[in-house]
């Protein structure tokens, strides 16, 4: 077995040293009812690297990779070009095979990276402090709601109807157990978000208002109005961002008055990976809220010789110290994804991120205009960054998405899949466009969408 260095001679020598006659002697404390007579049945025996590779490739080969088709999916996960050097860095064994930096003297690489990462995220979000990452955007969203309850000592969260429905579901799932009251809503199919409706739901019992920016339909609005309304009632504004590239083109949520900014960092450096691992980003605008934050924080300090160094800090908030009184039960974060994000963000820099955002927006505008010319298609949004909603005249988008896939085009995410059973949203299709989208892709989508809506039979997908 290629991963097991002990030889039979070693094993015999070691058993002798231990004073055991066989390996079974070391498992004597396992009760008879759980003793097995050999390897577990009904599973294969060990296999060579070559055989395993063949097995895994047979699975991978059944999937249509985003890079092999015109691709327009978003809704919380976006396909961006990741520079080659990002993967080179994260595959360095010193990063890949390290643990949480509990021994800071020999973990300065991870710690300095986290300090840089925290700074990048805080600046991107327009906040004072960001943590060292959480699991993903949806769990970060829940952690923000929980934190707002701790800060305001209130238990009612008002969710915008245009918050990603999976994020809303995660929040509602957790709230069942913590006793938080969640006031949610469904998105209204309007060209602009209904901010007045949202504001009218804020009252003196409200701990926080949760707004996605840009929202699930791709719409953008000035959050400062919501921030003012929330603050007037003593509530916090939580802004959720699922596409960090957008913040290269639009004002940061912190700048618009959000108190806690959370989001999904996957777009920068991480890749699609069928939904995980991703990267939860979490930041607060006001440094006085730092001690209520969940998750790991890296801070600067000095060593015994006076040299600058970094450590995990404020850990009295955390489960391994506070146990049942911790701010969260989180232990592992998303360290390697944070590294990928940080490396990619360092390659981009201010200039690259702004150019990347502009290019995304330019191509999205081009796509929106092109699709709006397809008979039976109308564009919902007046404003958007790189994702927008189109309405399909009299056709459920879910069926059209499947039809497009048969035609070799990954055409978008249907709101019917995100909001099953909600009739008003059935005909809406979310279309995302990034720098990886080519003009040929846009043409293909427009043509195939035309045919699909016209009910023309799908041909064999182009290879």
């Amino acid at each position, binding site marked *: 077995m290629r991963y097991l*260095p002990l030889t039979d001679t070693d094993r015999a020598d070691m058993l002798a040293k231990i004073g055991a006659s066989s390996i079974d002697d070391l498992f004597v404390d396992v009760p008879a009812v759980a003793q097995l007579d050999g390897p577990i049945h009904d599973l294969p025996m060990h296999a060579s690297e070559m055989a395993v590779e063949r097995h895994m490739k047979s699975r991978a080969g059944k999937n249509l990779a985003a890079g092999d088709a015109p691709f327009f999916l978003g809704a919380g996960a976006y396909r961006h070009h990741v520079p080659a050097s990002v993967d080179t860095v994260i595959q360095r064994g010193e990063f890949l095979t390290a643990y949480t930096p509990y021994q800071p003297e020999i973990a300065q690489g*991870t710690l300095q990276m986290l300090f840089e990462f925290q700074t990048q995220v805080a600046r991107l979000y327009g906040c004072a402090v960001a943590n060292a990452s959480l699991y993903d955007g949806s769990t970060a969203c829940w952690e923000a709601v929980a934190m707002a309850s701790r800060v305001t000592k209130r238990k009612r969260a008002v969710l915008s109807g245009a918050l990603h429905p999976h994020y809303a579901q995660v929040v509602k799932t957790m709230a069942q157990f913590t006793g938080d009251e969640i006031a949610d809503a469904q998105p209204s199919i309007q060209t602009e978000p209904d901010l007045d409706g949202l504001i009218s739901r804020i009252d003196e019992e409200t701990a926080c208002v949760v707004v996605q920016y840009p929202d699930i339909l791709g719409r953008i609005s000035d959050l400062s109005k919501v921030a003012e309304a929330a603050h007037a009632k003593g509530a916090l504004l939580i802004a959720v961002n699922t596409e960090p590239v957008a913040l290269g083109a639009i004002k940061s949520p912190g700048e618009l008055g959000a108190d806690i900014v959370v989001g999904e960092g996957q777009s920068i450096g991480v890749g699609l990976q069928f939904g995980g691992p991703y990267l939860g980003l979490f930041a607060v605008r006001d440094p006085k809220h730092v001690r209520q934050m969940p998750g790991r924080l890296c801070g600067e300090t000095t060593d015994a010789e006076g*040299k600058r160094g970094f450590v995990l800090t404020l850990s009295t908030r955390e489960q391994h110290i506070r146990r049942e009184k911790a701010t969260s039960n989180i232990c592992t974060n998303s360290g390697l*994804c944070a590294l990928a994000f940080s490396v990619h963000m360092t390659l981009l820099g201010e200039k690259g991120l702004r150019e990347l955002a502009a290019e995304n927006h330019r191509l999205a505008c081009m796509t929106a205009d092109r699709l709006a010319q397809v008979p039976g298609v109308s564009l919902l949004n007046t404003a958007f960054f790189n994702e927008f909603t189109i309405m399909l005249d009299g056709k459920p988008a879910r069926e059209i998405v499947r039809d497009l896939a048969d035609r070799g085009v990954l055409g978008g995410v249907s709101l019917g899949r995100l909001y099953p059973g909600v009739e008003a949203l059935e005909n809406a299709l979310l279309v995302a466009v990034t720098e990886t989208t080519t003009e040929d892709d846009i043409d293909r989508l427009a043509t195939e969408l035309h045919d699909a809506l016209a009910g023309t039979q799908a041909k064999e997908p182009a290879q």
Partner: protein
Amino acid sequence: MNAPNKSGWKPQMEVTEDGLHNGPMTTTGNRALMLEEPLIFEIGHSETTGVDLPEIDESAPTRLAGVERSEPIGLVGLTEPETVRHYTRLSRQNYGIDLGFFPLGSCTMKHNPRLNEKMARLPGFADIHPLAPQQSVQGALQVIHELGDWLCKLTGMPSVAMSPKAGAHGELCGILAIRAAHTARGDARRVVLVPESAHGTNPATAAFAGYEVEDIPATAEGRVDVAKLKERLGPDVAGVMITNPNTCGLFEKDFREIADAVHEAGGYVYCDGANFNAIVGRVRPGDLGVDAMHINLHKTFSTPHGGGGPGSGPVVFSEALAPYAPLPFVKKSDEGEYYLVEEESGDECGPTFGRMTAFHGQMGMFTRALTYMLSHGADGLKQVAEDAVLNANYVLRSLEDILYAPFADSGPCMHEALFGDKDFGGDLSTLDLAKALIDEGYHPMTVYFPLVVHGAMLVEPTETESKASLDQFITAFRSVTERALAGDETMKQAPYYAPRRRLDETAAARKPKLSWTDPE
């Protein structure tokens, strides 16, 4: 039994009067291959970038609702060569399994096979969208289904939830299922029992789920006190959370008896699977009466720890809890198609407690873990557990004559050996010994955990260390232990040879500096 260091070689710490190493200071602060590296904010510029993108056409119209960014973000960029060098230099200030022995107890720092990395990067896995039409991702759904099947068979449990993102998230999944099951029958139980030796995540999780946490006392031999536990069971106890093998490194031999008693009292049994590596392929927790157990794919199944994640924490369930599992999950139709159950309403879905995360779980970890399982097979995984346990017992019996081992007489240890700092000389403590081990070229074991042993040192060698590696570690460990017993005060300043000396954690917490501020 414990042979002295055969080579007779003994390290000589050459420390000058000022407590520093020999040799002159360098102008750069570098020490040959040990290179100091500034922060990106000190070397990067807002106008520098390492990517080639089209220049912004300022005249192009935008549709950004009037919230166009007007202020700078405050980011800096580096070109590719500068970026690669920056992170390469940082990486060299890190200790990883690739570099040496990393016996961090309860973390299972085993070798991370590179085939796993290669497979996870196949475009058919790495470049697919979580909401892609299901007909276009049949192979991905198959992998999730296949991995779930392995986990069920290895644990002897009928059902698995794949979406939890890490161990603590998996614990939460299990406890929420327990709470949902009680709620479903209108049984409002308030208390979860957790042993004192448990990981901090256990009480934090139970408290989060709305339970009061009560300690289960341990016996002198380091196991759950079954009599006391049984006494406490009653109509208010929702369940127990027990780590098995436990954090003292011992198998809970009365686990079945405990489980039966908990079930009889109407409660459920959560098993923390953090230590599954000791029994994988050899013992099935399902045979011991477990109702829910999370499995850390980043421990037992070799997915990389990555400097603190990402992890992955699927949870296996008994028949009783399976209906409450979170969405989404993968099923296979009679026609052999794989599909996702994502909707709470449909016929496919039981009384689920809801959704824990946006998508389907840590696919990148699933491909790595399945690759690992296929490589080992049922026979190889059994050997994994046996070698892990053998290595730990070898360490225990090679050090117990010199180092206090509180549970050495409680039978064989499982995959980790526990020691305490009793009899250390002067005011030396476990921390000093750990830092001295750093100078010897090792990542220290887990220290001060579990809390039930003074100055605890938890050593988990894993099965991927050779005997030669263990022998060298034992030699080094004996030498630092001898120094600690003798009260060698130079240990108070260790490490001497790491990229940094001891860091001032008190100052870091008193006046937190958590992000870079540009100089005025």
